[in-house]
């Protein structure tokens, strides 16, 4: 079988930029979580955290360079988890 995908080589610079973005987002998360009122900190935690996870998945875990079917598989797995969480919150909010 001929090799369909040689590993995509990502430059050092790209990785360092992603790492810097992750560090900055962590800083923002801490500031939002510790210094401000809950009305601001909760939405910040709920947006910045998935964004950080997304950066790791997309760049460090190479999803950006993967074929669509692997991305699709990840989407289905995370989608399933999101459905579980949504059903849980629906259940909790109508109790």
């Amino acid at each position: 079988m001929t090799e369909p995908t040689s590993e995509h080589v990502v430059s050092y610079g790209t990785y360092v930029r992603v790492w810097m973005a992750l560090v900055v987002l962590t800083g923002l998360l801490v500031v939002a979580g510790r210094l401000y009122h809950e009305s601001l900190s909760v939405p910040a935690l709920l947006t910045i955290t998935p964004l950080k996870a997304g950066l790791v998945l997309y760049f460090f875990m190479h999803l950006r360079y993967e074929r669509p079917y692997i991305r699709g598989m990840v989407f289905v797995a995370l989608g399933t988890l999101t459905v579980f969480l949504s059903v849980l919150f629906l259940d909790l909010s109508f109790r």
Partner: protein
Amino acid sequence: MTEGAEHAEHVHKDREAAKIGMWLFLFTEMLLFGGLFILYSAYRSRYPGDFHRGGQQLDYVIGVVNTLILLTSSLTMATSLTALAQRQRRRAVFLLTTTVLLGAVFLVNKSFEWSVKFHHGIYPSSPELLARPPGEILFFGLYFTMTGLHGLHVVAGIAVLSVMTFLVARGRITAADPVKLVNAGLYWHLIDVIWIFLLPLFYLAA
């Protein structure tokens, strides 16, 4: 020796299948921790005040420091693959060794954090903990379970990456056939992703 090398050339390898297998394993890990996140959310919504107070008793500085350590270890892990692809084997070994060391520093920090809690009489089923309100008992139960399970994953990751470092150093993982290292890297990055979620849940949402 020559026979072995000749034989190796004919071994059928399917990188795509290896990668799919790794991702399927990672999905089981995501759902394992996902289930615990769901448990956490359910109890947090039932005992918001107790969880809030529980979070205030954790040192967020150590949580943030450990986050920076794991993020940096992810960087060294990812760049080791670039080094390997560019046939800079020494640099790849150096970056992988750094990754393993950062993982070890993470565990040392975690053990300090846990021992301080133990010192204060807070550990699963401790008399001090059982005297507290139900939500706090649940908070610390989840804290020890989730960070402990995560810690076990870090230990496993360190073990796997140590073997990979050895294989790279010995020229058994190469730019032409990096799939073992790629998959080990995926595992390490997932450990990082899980910690990214644990940080706000336990240390920042207080």
